[in-house]
């Protein structure tokens, strides 16, 4: 007898959204003014993107067409070698059009204000501004006078987020996780935008941060920041290096020597300078420095050239991090 039953139809399998597509969103911010309000997800996204761009830098053709047609202005009101060249290279590697501006030799010397300068440049149809300025909050101020996306390349003693990001990328090359990592930042914390950005970023990622320096160079507002995580202050270099994974030495700003913040450069070196002896005693200690280094002040000259000093890796990572930041922020155009 013929079977008249229809063939059983396979039940359609229900369909679920994969988790991977939910985390694919970009940054929550339109600008990069500092790391104080960036979430750990955003920082991790920048670092992960930077790792991919770093691979581009190792190829025979070190250029991708990603930012074709985007115009970036590098507004530098303060002297800078590394940051400026690094940003410029990052922009070129991404095929963006770049314009460089430095305060000397511009209308600023004729008395034009930051606002007027920026608005005039923006009137020439630009998309992004990279700003280095001597006043804290200058980049935030700029976001209120121009429509372009603003990247802070250092504003006074406030923040220098891309430097902290490249420090964190360098750290991630040596350590698997930030959680529980012991980082000591040694030197002039008060006047250091690098230290501020690093403290914010590292605490957000769950690292333990130790601040070390002469009393007059440690800011008083630290307890406000420390609510974010584990922040310790010490005035002894030994105590800062004991059990520490990474020592970040900061540049002593020689131009501030007239302010009598510490007795002498030589005394600073004996008290807070990292010597070969430290590297010999702490076998796993990694030394970082944002540059430019005063040899024989923050770091003994042999320490600078030691294999556990990763200062030049930091510089290499700088280009990759800035490419990542430019790439991720350039998508935030359509907010208006």
């Amino acid at each position: 007898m013929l079977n008249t039953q229809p063939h059983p139809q396979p039940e359609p399998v229900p369909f679920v959204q994969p988790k991977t597509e939910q985390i694919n969103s970009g940054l929550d911010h339109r600008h990069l003014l500092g790391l104080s309000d960036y979430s750990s997800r955003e920082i991790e996204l920048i670092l992960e993107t930077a790792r991919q761009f770093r691979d581009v830098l190792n190829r025979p053709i070190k250029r991708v067409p990603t930012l074709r047609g985007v115009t970036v202005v590098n507004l530098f009101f303060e002297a800078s070698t590394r940051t400026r060249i690094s940003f410029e290279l990052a922009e070129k590697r991404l095929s963006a059009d770049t314009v460089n501006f430095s305060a000397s030799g511009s209308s600023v010397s004729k008395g034009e204000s930051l606002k007027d300068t920026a608005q005039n440049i923006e009137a020439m149809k630009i998309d992004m501004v990279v700003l280095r300025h001597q006043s804290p909050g200058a980049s935030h101020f700029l976001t209120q006078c121009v429509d372009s996306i603003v990247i802070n390349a250092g504003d006074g003693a406030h923040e220098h987020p891309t430097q902290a990001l490249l420090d964190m990328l360098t750290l991630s090359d040596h350590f698997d996780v930030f959680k529980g990592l012991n980082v000591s930042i040694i030197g002039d914390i008060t006047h250091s935008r690098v230290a501020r950005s690093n403290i914010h970023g590292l605490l957000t990622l769950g690292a333990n941060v130790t601040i070390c320096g002469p009393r007059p160079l440690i800011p008083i507002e630290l307890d406000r920041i420390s609510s974010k995580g584990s922040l310790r202050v010490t005035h002894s270099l030994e105590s800062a290096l004991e059990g520490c994974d990474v020592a970040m030495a900061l540049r002593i700003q020689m131009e501030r020597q007239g302010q009598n913040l510490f007795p002498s450069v030589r005394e600073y070196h004996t008290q807070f300078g990292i010597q070969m002896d430290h590297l010999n005693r702490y076998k796993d200690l990694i030394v970082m420095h944002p540059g430019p280094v005063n040899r024989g002040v923050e770091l003994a000259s042999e320490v600078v050239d030691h294999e556990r000093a990763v200062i030049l890796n930091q510089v290499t990572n700088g280009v990759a991090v800035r490419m990542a930041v430019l790439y991720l922020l350039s998508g935030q155009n359509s907010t208006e």
Partner: protein
Amino acid sequence: MSCQKIVNLIFMEPNDVIKAQLMTARDLERTLQRMARQIVEMFDLDETRSGSFGLIGMQSRGVFIASRLEKIIQTITGSAVPLGILDATMYRDDFRMRLKQPVVRETKIDFDIDGRDLVLVDDVLFTGRTTRAGLDALTDLGRPASVHFLVIVDRGLRELPIKADFVGRKIPTLPGEEVRVRIAEMDDQEGVWLVEHPTTPTT
């Protein structure tokens, strides 16, 4: 699973409304078997070809599809095939039309692509723009002898003159519809679905 449960699941995910399941996990496996054999035949693959042939999976699902194909080819020919990963995000052309930048993923090709016959692998062929970006990305990495293109689903609606050399299924679709290929390694489920998702940006 009861119909009600399925309906619940559909409505729990408000963005995607399933119109049909196009391929089951078994269909997908058979299609991969067929395409692997086509590749072996077309490129005359054997142990001598490992220096002049390569499979390149495009991020993200193409990577897993290429790795499946590689395993099947290896069981057929008995020799491994060089396998690479390509991410074309940096070469996309829809950069100013997006609210958020797509995540840049890893590109990892451990062999020199110069002079090789390559098969570029992706899940869905739609406008052809991702493929164009992939070809540009490859060009920056070297000069392959030839590039062929393999997709699981060709859904039509091309915006560029691009065609696939190996096609799992040709399924004509409408704008506003999306084809979702799901691979067990990445999605915890496997198969191909046709869904309605009017707000999804085109890929």
